[in-house]
């Protein structure tokens, strides 16, 4: 889902940078407000985790390939704002150093994978888990569904960004300047393969990591506010 340089015209990629700047600033502010220095190693490892997970390309019938991102599980564990920071860092390194995703498309890719995924993942998880016990099966189901939806919806955004190019930049002398396929092609292509395959992979990884944390370090999954209140009582 890493959109390369050239597929999106300037209107789209500039608009997505303009959307991303306040999101990055607010995410930085929230990390400053909510995260303690003790949690920095976890944030750093989450960026490395999403970087490496995205390297696992999986082939699917029809000849296409894709990968999971880990965006939902990072959002569930660290909160969506910290996740935006860590996934964006991984995506920016991938673009600049490894040419995976375009430089001009950094705003778009950070929006699709770095913002949509943790926000959809976090709120889906919250909504489904409700007040259930941290160790409950309901929370595993919530994490799995959160993982699935997060990647499927992110792929819908990418498909939409691809597919509006022929409308924004119609053909000149029979040649489209940017992505030549419109929404009737890009939406089914992106959504289809993520609904059938990559979403399932993301769901599986989200569930596995969630169960690991649930069994071993459930305190990391506790509500942020109650944890903060608890920590604030510890004398300095």
């Amino acid at each position, binding site marked *: 889902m*890493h*959109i*390369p*340089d*050239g*597929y999106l015209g300037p209107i789209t990629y500039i608009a997505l940078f303009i959307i991303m700047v306040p999101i990055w600033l607010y995410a*930085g502010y929230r*990390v*400053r407000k909510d*995260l*303690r*220095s*003790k*949690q*920095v*190693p*976890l944030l*750093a*490892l989450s*960026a*490395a*985790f999403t*970087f*490496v*997970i995205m*390297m*696992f*390309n*999986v*082939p*699917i019938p*029809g000849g*296409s*390939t*894709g*990968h999971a991102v880990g965006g939902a599980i990072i959002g569930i564990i660290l909160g969506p704002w910290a996740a935006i920071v*860590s996934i964006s*860092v*991984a995506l920016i*390194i991938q*673009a*600049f*150093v*490894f*040419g*995976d995703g*375009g430089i*001009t498309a950094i705003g778009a890719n950070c929006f699709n994978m770095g913002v949509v995924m943790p926000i959809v993942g976090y709120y889906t998880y919250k909504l489904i888990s409700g007040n259930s016990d941290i160790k409950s099966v309901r929370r595993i189901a919530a994490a799995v569904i959160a993982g699935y939806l997060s990647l499927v919806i992110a792929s819908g955004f990418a498909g939409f960004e*691809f597919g509006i190019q022929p409308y924004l930049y119609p053909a000149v002398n029979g*040649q*489209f*300047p*940017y*992505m*030549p396929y419109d929404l009737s092609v*890009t939406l089914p*292509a*992106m959504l289809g*393969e993520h609904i059938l395959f990559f979403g399932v992979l993301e769901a599986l990884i989200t569930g596995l990591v969630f169960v690991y944390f649930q069994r*071993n370090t459930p305190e990391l999954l506790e509500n942020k506010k109650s944890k903060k209140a608890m920590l604030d009582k510890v004398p300095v």
Partner: protein
Amino acid sequence: MDNSTKIIIAALIVLVIFTPLGLLAVGETFGEWGLEYFEEKLGYVPPGLESLSSIWGAPLPDYGIPGLGDTTVGAAAGYIASAIIGSVVSVGLIYGLGKILVKDNSS
């Protein structure tokens, strides 16, 4: 370093070692085609796409280390090296950001 951090690092190392599995997928991802794809399918390369596509030359394109060659072993080694570089740079950047952003309120 607490125990859970150690386990996460261990899991990450295992993942890094297995990243060359990602090389087994040889298909083309939708929307990430090379320029030849358009030449073949449309008979032309979209001109805006062509000019933007060369805007940046990544030092380690496609997670490969230049000079390691196109052999399976070379590609696998390049992939693992890229995973290590990516992880280390990710961790370093977040630590740098963390120093700026996060107040020291751990104690």
